[in-house]
């Protein structure tokens, strides 16, 4: 089983709902964003970009690409970063020593480090206020989701392992108003994601680095990277 995602850039409206939904559901502190949505070429989101005389606004959501050949996993000295049986690259918050080599290795810059106590950082949002999925997720003695990660460990998108374990889609997919996000199993040729990448022109980010991402972008109208 290889879980992956397809993002239809023709449908993305750049609303950043997935970005904020991810941030909230996974209890990320201020400054930490597992999922980013920006306008290609624009210094500020949703401003016009002049591409050789033509004005455009093309959005590009980027989060962990769930590579089949993940650079991050290779470099982790303790094996805290690993790929589970669903093809999801995860971080064991109990095993990470915080060396940040994986952050250095990731060419997509999707990994985030807890430079400070995230619980303290989140406390500025309200006294006693806690947001995000509240329960731990443990997989074979690895702690792969917890609401307040310890200071000094690395974290990133998990394809919302707390939801996919229940057969639900990740938060970004569920909340995408543009209906631009699709999640499924690439090992299943009949899955929506497998079919989509056949139906529309598709590309992946930084193909030349041979990371073999499982996040695909499809688009007819919006230019490829």
């Amino acid at each position, binding site marked *: 089983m290889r879980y992956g995602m397809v993002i239809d850039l023709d449908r993305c409206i750049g609303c950043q709902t997935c970005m904020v*939904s991810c941030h*909230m559901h996974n209890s990320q502190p201020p400054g930490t964003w597992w999922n980013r949505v920006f306008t290609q070429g624009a210094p500020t989101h*949703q401003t016009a970009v002049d591409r050789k005389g033509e004005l455009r606004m093309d959005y590009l959501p980027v989060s962990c690409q769930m590579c089949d050949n993940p650079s991050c996993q290779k470099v982790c000295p303790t094996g805290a970063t690993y790929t589970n049986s669903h093809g999801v690259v995860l971080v064991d918050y109990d095993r990470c020593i915080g060396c940040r080599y994986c952050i250095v290795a990731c060419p997509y810059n999707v990994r985030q480090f807890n430079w400070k106590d995230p619980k303290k950082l989140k406390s500025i*949002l*309200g006294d006693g*206020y806690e947001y995000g999925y*509240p*329960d731990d997720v443990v997989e074979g003695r690895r702690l792969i989701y917890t609401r307040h990660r310890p200071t000094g460990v690395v974290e990133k998108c998990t394809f919302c392992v707390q939801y996919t374990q229940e057969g*639900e889609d990740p938060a970004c*997919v569920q909340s995408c108003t543009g209906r631009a996000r699709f999640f499924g199993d690439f090992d299943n040729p009949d899955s929506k994601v497998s079919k989509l990448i056949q139906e529309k022109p598709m590309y992946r980010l930084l193909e030349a680095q041979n990371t073999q991402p499982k996040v695909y972008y499809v688009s007819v109208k919006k230019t490829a990277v």
Partner: protein
Amino acid sequence: MKSDEKSLSRRTFLKACGAAGVAAAVGGVSLSAPADKAVAASGPMKSVRTVCAPNCTGCCGMKAQVRDNAIQTILPAADYPETEHNPRGCAKGASMTNLIYGPDRLKNPMLRVAGSKMGQFKFEEVSWKDALDHAAGELRRIMDTYGPDSVGYFVQVAGTGYVHKGALVRLANLNGWSVQGGYDMNGDLPMHAPMTFGVQSEELESYQWLDSKYIMIFGSNVYSTRTPDAPMLKLAQEKGTKVIYFDPNFCATSAEADEWYPIKLSSDAAVALGMVKVLLDEKRYNEDYIKTFTDLPILVRKDTQTRLKASDVDGLKIPFDVPEYREAYVVYSPSQGFIAVNPESLHLPDDILLEGSCSVRLTDGSWIDAKPAFQLLKESVEKYNPDKVEELSGMPANDLTRLARELSAPENQPFHLIYGASNYQWYHGDLKGRALALLPVLTGNLGYQGGGFSTLAGQYKVRLPLASWWVPQEMDGFKPPGQKSCPFAYIANGPTETMTAPYPKKGIKAWIMLCGNPFDQHNLNNKLREKVEKNEIELVINLDFQKTTSSNYSHVLLPGVSWYEKTELTATPLHPYLQLMQPAIDPIGECKPELWIFRELAKRLDRRQEKYFYPEYAEEPEKAVAEIIKLILKNGGAITEGITLEQLREGPVKMKNTSKNSVDGKKIPFYEQIHERKPFPPQSFPEPIARTAQFLKSGRIQFYRDERPFIQLNEQLPIHKEPFEDTEYKIKPAARREFPYAYITTNSIHRIHSTHSNNLVFRELQDDRAKVKMNPQDAKEKRIKDGDYVKVFNDRGEVYGDVVLDPGIQAGSIIFEQGWWSRYTGGSSYNSLIYPFINPTHEVYHVPQMWSPNTSWNECLCDVRKVARK
């Protein structure tokens, strides 16, 4: 949405570890013996469906996951039976808990510390009894001293909450207060709608955009302002619908349209009339439709420029009754002669004239010339040839002609035109709207599925008859005086000579604000602040669930609840569902649902008023709400037939509509008029039909208006008028030189007006800086660079922000995203620059929030200068 396969479930093991984890995290919460601590701390999770409705028109069903009376996560409910709607939601709704639990949450009733300065947050927490006693006492004093109509109030906006927000309307009716209608206060009342169609406004529900073949959008940045509905445009395009967009600036909607035309500021009327000329010249219009449904065949006198009245025509019989709010006019049929037009009937002979001229003998014996309004229209648009239009608007002549032909081509029907708020919020927004309305009407698209004219602004719409709750009747000898209406424009501006709205004799001395932030969000708010500082307004009661800038200018703070803490009935113009907000959690702190607050005020103001608010459910507001909803459903007529409260508790319920021709049950605006020949206008709740029918005395769509101000201003028919000539340049000719930029305030995807301005998530997404968007060439001339801190100002006010150079911004404009709280913009509100010019045509009638002076936010000029960072 479910993924393809279920993953292996490690439920039991996970639950145990999860419980341990949460116990470790939560720590001290323990309701039982230590051995059970882990289990007690992580109680069961329940899912509650409510509606997120902050006046964005989204009205999106959301599911809150709740544990231990605290919301953990929020997801779109995505349970609309018409699945095109799924999912609805946005980033603001996704992070709502930041406001519910955030540091600005108002949790206790508060009274201003005696003697403290206005503008500062100097309050002390008090009990509800003390707060309410004080508020009611002060209200009573002011009512007794200055008259009840000197208590003003507004609701932002009642369309989002029929029960709780409606409770204030009920209270105002009981006390004879003056309402500052939110719709025109917010600048959202699209006056061209009552002028042309006799309605408050009208629009297609967004899933009907899928049924259009050709969509023209004039200045509505749907992709930034209508997040849950914008995807319908893309889905329509996927099906082959063409989307044409007109906007001076390249915004998110420009990027997605098939074609974008950067026309000059506020030149849409010229473009529309240019297209009308093409339609008329090339006979690309639906003659039968025009004769049946519009006033264009009605004769207009040359001498007075008013419509010819049947009662003035010598020898003309009027074989029908004419209600006092209507008038019988005249058309001419070659076969039947002059015919009196029955305003209550849409049946006239096929051969009535649209063009030409008539000689008419009046009852006094004199002869006058008269022409059908269509003829006058033809003559009026003669000058809008493609080259002239290009000169006025920048619209390329060839494209103008081509588009006019495309929108009227058979293969492109139905044709739908969308007119945006930021576009009609100009002084001549009505002229533009009336001109644009010609396009779908001349081509016969109004009243057909997927076709017509939509104005997009605000969750204003009262979709049901609500008088059963909003308008209290006489009870036990107590006769409710009924509320007055005093539009906000007159509070900011002072009364005018030409106003038709009532103005309280002693002015407004007290102000009750419900869920609004006018001390940031309304124009001349620096003047408004002054009024409070100088004690001209002696009492400001602020009912909200957050502490906003307006709290700093209030005397009493009453904490209400968010839509996760109460039951409420709500709807939106943009989808067909009636939905319930439902409480996911108990009210935070000492907060109370608004219904409870208004009942408490009522009984203190006058003991007899208490019984209007279900006193038998004194401490169980939820039960009262249930009764009220049942009452509303019972009195909803055809719209709520068969809909029960129990159904609503389960999920969204589609309102009934009478559009029998609709292929899939979609509500078609003006259906009865077009298909059942009922006279215009349809009713705009909550006003009785007579009040709005007077706008269309002919009983038909009116492009010709013959009230005196229209004639005086030469606006009988829509024409193009330049922006600023009748406003800024008129009051200060030197403004041409001194304030060279148009000051345009747009909506941001990071807020709903000023809601979420203080949400940390959005501060992060905006680099925690208010942005001033400039055209790079303009900036270069001013020697301003990207990232510079600037002051944007005119004679009236100023605002501060960081410059963003945007090549999509038309030269001569400065864009500021509205909604920032003053604390983020150097202490001053962006609204201090904007002057509420009152258009005299808006004073011809006064029907609150339906014919009332609208606020033209964009009719404003400014200059910009680099300054040291504050």
